[in-house]
């Protein structure tokens, strides 16, 4: 079994290394220094006298820093090592590494210390797909005490600049230090690795941190300490809950980065390592989850996504006027249009979710200037739903990619190619109208009716939207409901057949409010029933479906963000105990992931395993997984804005004896919530 890699991050810059601190790529290991979707270091290997040292201990000092304690191999456990090696690394705009070697013997030591460095400048898409054919040319040069590793394709240039504070012999493959250590002596050097985006002086940056113990200053306009202090303070009888909460807030700060498209607006990257980029859906849902805790995230999300709203029909990017983007990337393949992510618009849910968030932000914050400022963008999004989202005029939003080569087949949150399956395991045909998107559209239209009436001065639009929402709800409950199974179809496929698998999507429907009251209890029973509920959370697909796979990305795993929306949906329909049950299950699972919920974990039941089983390539941290515990808290405490006041209506299980959440921000200023655990689950 491979040792887990060490990940440290700062915004969209991150380092993945082994337990020694080395970076050495292989088909199995996607290691490196990454920034802007490009790998700026693919080799960074320390040797002492020609041998790799052995790791004693590795310590994550902070989200952006780690230290590695190493000793040279002695060939036997019976001989103590004569020296120790400490590497301390802090990432941000590249990284800074302090390398220290200590002689523990009363005799001198002469050492040949070498750092090998190389960069393949691979696009993250190439790293992910292990396809490293390159169209440009590599070069290396030595400029004084600096090693420059470079890559050029036409005018596209990426360079890595490496310098050492201690004198070194520099060649094109790295640095050599010939070190003489006196008895009990010490030697050290500081190594700066800079990611120079276009290879020019103007773009050169210093590493953000010079010391692993520097005060963290995430991209949130304040220190980490201030960020934590500005969020509501949580106290609970269950100390694990406090740890999960603290971890989530730190991860949300660490993941924030400044997109080149929107300097000055820090948004969360979706997840480490594959999704360290701007994603429309992820940003919108994360912002929704954390609104009662970190409201400014929603404001930034609305501004950035409004700014990059689609304006044209572009088949390559699946762009249409009024559509909200899916994903934005900066690597070589995107630059040369071998991938459509500049940005890519292949999502049908981000547009209604944008409208949902806009309304939710005003409801919580009372700040209506955004709703007013982006009225035109909101109207364009509403037009997109009717004119482009509903492709065939049947009243439902459906999708089918126009970019057949590199576009996404499924343009809903379950966006892997094999996620939309009938109960017998067969694939649905396109165009596909997934159920939850109809729920989001229903919710968006209802919410925009309020905005139109209260802020846009357009009661005609408000009346029309309310009428359309009511019609959609009626039609949806008729066309998606499967009476013999007592749940809603996952989707309607290209032939308007009901895709009849039982999935977690029915929880999103409850969140949206589109479910008729007389169908809600059946849905709730499914969500906490033995086939969808694993004991650790809600499976994406029920375990008795033909397509179920406990380690299938969207067909059986448990996604914490998904479970968090399910919990709120249950709560919205009055199923308080059921909501608490799924929330508590996920929070219990977090303990097994060092209090950090990953992107997803396996769907094995709690009756099969005493701990939640990891999903092999899950991102962690992941923004909307970090947001999940916050939404669980909102759900458990029953937090809801009512006019200018915060309503608190707790429904907390006895497992958590008491919770207090102090200083919840909103249109009321700051308010507190207290709860006692009252019922068994």
């Amino acid at each position: 079994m491979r040792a887990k890699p060490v990940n440290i991050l700062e915004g969209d810059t991150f380092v993945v290394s082994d337990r020694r601190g080395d970076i050495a790529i292989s088909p199995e290991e996607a290691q490196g220094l990454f920034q802007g979707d490009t790998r700026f270091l693919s080799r960074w290997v320390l040797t002492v006298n020609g041998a790799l040292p052995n790791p004693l201990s590795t310590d994550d000092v902070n989200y952006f820093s780690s230290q590695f304690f190493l000793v040279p191999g002695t060939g036997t456990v019976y001989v103590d090592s004569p020296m120790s090696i400490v590497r301390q690394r802090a990432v941000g705009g590249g990284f800074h590494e302090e390398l220290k070697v200590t002689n523990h013997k009363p005799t001198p030591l002469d050492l040949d210390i070498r750092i090998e460095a190389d960069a393949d400048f691979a696009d993250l898409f190439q790293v992910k797909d292990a396809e490293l054919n390159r169209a440009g040319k590599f070069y290396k040069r030595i400029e004084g005490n600096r090693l420059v590793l470079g890559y050029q394709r036409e005018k596209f240039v990426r360079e890595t600049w490496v310098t050492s504070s201690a004198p070194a012999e520099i060649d094109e493959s790295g640095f050599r230090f010939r070190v003489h250590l006196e008895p009990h002596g010490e030697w050290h050097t500081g190594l700066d690795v800079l990611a120079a985006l276009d290879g020019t002086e103007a773009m050169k940056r210093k590493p953000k941190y010079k010391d692993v113990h520097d005060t963290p200053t995430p991209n949130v306009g304040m220190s980490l300490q201030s960020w934590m202090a500005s969020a509501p303070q949580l106290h609970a009888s269950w100390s694990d809950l406090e740890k999960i909460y603290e971890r989530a807030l730190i991860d949300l700060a660490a993941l924030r980065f400044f997109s080149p498209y929107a300097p000055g607006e820090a948004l969360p990257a979706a997840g480490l390592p594959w999704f360290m980029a701007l994603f429309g859906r992820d940003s919108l849902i994360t912002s929704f989850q954390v609104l009662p805790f970190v409201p400014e995230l929603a404001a930034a999300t609305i501004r950035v996504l409004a700014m990059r709203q689609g304006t044209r029909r572009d088949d390559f990017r699946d762009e249409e006027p009024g559509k909200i983007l899916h994903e934005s990337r900066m690597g070589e393949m995107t630059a040369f249009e071998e991938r459509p992510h500049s940005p890519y618009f292949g999502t049908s849910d981000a547009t209604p979710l944008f409208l949902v968030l806009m309304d939710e932000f005003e409801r919580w914050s009372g700040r209506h200037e955004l709703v007013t400022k982006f009225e035109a963008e909101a109207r364009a999004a509403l037009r997109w739903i009717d004119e482009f989202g509903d492709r065939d005029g049947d009243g439902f939003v459906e999708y089918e990619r126009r970019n057949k080569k590199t576009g996404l087949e499924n343009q809903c949150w379950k966006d892997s190619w094999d996620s939309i399956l009938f109960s017998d395991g067969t694939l649905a045909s396109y165009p596909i109208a997934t159920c939850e998107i109809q729920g989001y559209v229903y919710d968006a239209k209802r919410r925009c009716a309020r905005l139109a009436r209260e802020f846009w001065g357009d009661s005609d639009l408000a009346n029309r939207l309310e009428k359309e929402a009511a019609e959609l709800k009626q039609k949806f409950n008729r066309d998606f409901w499967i009476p013999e199974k007592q749940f809603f179809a996952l989707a309607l496929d290209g032939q308007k057949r009901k895709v009849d698998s039982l999935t977690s999507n029915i929880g999103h429907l409850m969140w949206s409010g589109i479910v008729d009251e007389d169908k809600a209890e059946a849905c709730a029973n499914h969500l906490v029933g033995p086939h969808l509920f694993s004991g650790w959370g809600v499976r994406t697909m029920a375990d008795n479906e033909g397509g179920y796979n406990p380690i299938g990305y969207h067909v059986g795993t448990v996604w914490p963000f998904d479970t968090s929306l399910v919990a709120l949906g249950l709560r919205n329909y009055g199923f308080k105990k059921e909501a608490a049950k799924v929330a508590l299950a996920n929070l219990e699972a977090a303990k097994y992931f060092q209090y950090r919920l990953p992107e997803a974990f396996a769907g094995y039941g709690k009756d099969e395993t005493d701990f939640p089983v990891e999903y092999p390539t899950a991102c962690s941290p992941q923004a909307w997984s970090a947001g999940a515990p916050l939404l669980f808290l909102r759900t458990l405490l029953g937090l809801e804005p009512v006019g200018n006041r915060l309503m608190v209506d707790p429904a907390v299980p006895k497992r958590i004896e008491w919770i207090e959440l102090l200083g919840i921000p909103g249109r009321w200023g700051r308010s507190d919530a207290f709860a006692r655990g009252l019922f068994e689950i």
Partner: protein
Amino acid sequence: MPTAHEVFQIHQFQKYEPLLRGVTGTYLFEIEGVGYWFISVRDGAIALEEARHEADCTICCDEPDFIDIIEGRRSLITAAMQGRVTIHGDITLAQKFHGLVGAMIESKKQEAA
């Protein structure tokens, strides 16, 4: 293929552009070896001048790339990522311009249809 002079003359970037409602700022287009065009936007109202002034956002490229961008054959965003176009100053304004070009192309498509 038109020249940069013709493009600025043809489009004149209308006197009022709804897509730029709420946008205020200045652009300088530096077309290498051809000339400079200064555009001022005030809440959607546009004024164009063939002159070189300090601007909030400077977009610099060669003439063929500029024509390709204006006519929708090349994206301003990927051209900047490739290093074919350099953008200095307010990137938000550059993106608004990208959106405006998209809307102009879309409107032409609709007229043609």
